[in-house]
């Protein structure tokens, strides 16, 4: 199982803030997870296609090639606007 989290406008678009999911064996990277989530159809397909979306694996911003492993917390969010 991995813990997925969604923030800000993405959370609102998807209508979900977090979920625990069992990853298929074929999903071993952030990019793979993204494609798998996009297969859910609308609104996932378009919302996750945004190249500006950031991904944090275990609370560290990561790139699409980063590995995802059982027990990870993977968060998706738009560019940050704090300060």
């Amino acid at each position, binding site marked *: 199982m991995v813990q997925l989290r969604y923030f800000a406008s993405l959370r609102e678009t998807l209508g979900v803030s977090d979920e625990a999911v069992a990853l298929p064996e074929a999903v071993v990277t952030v990019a793979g997870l993204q494609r798998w989530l996009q297969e859910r159809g609308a609104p996932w397909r378009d919302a996750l296609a945004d190249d500006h979306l950031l991904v944090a694996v275990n609370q560290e911003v990561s790139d699409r090639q980063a590995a995802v492993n059982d027990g990870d917390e993977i968060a998706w969010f738009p560019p940050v606007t*704090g*300060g």
Partner: protein
Amino acid sequence: MISVQAEDFDPGEELERLRSGLAGRAGAVVSFTGLVRDLNQGDAIGRLTLEHYPGMTEKALAGIEAEAMQRWELIDSVIIHRVGPLSPNDRIVFVAAASAHRKAAFRACEFMIDTLKTRAPFWKKEATADGARWLSPADNTLPGQAG
């Protein structure tokens, strides 16, 4: 010291706490206070809501502070960021750096707020006459936003 909090903070108290701990080791304290700007002057609209990623936010701020402390050999530093609903002129963020030398304090303070703005997981949602909207990073240096 870092803090992510809904309640307001007192910059004077933070500066005084910093100073008391310095015991004559620092000559320079530089602070940045970010305030909510008022896009819609005279209008009741203009509230902001700050969302964040609990856990990662604290990690990101602690990382930024540690990097500044080490890079500029600071004696002490502070990062405080508020979350939740905010109104125009409210304080959003406070960053301070104490150093033996003023150039180091200026560079470190500016580094911390610049880096916070691009790396710390906060998002601003603004209430406008046309409803609420999430700000983009481009908006975030325009009126309505801190600094």
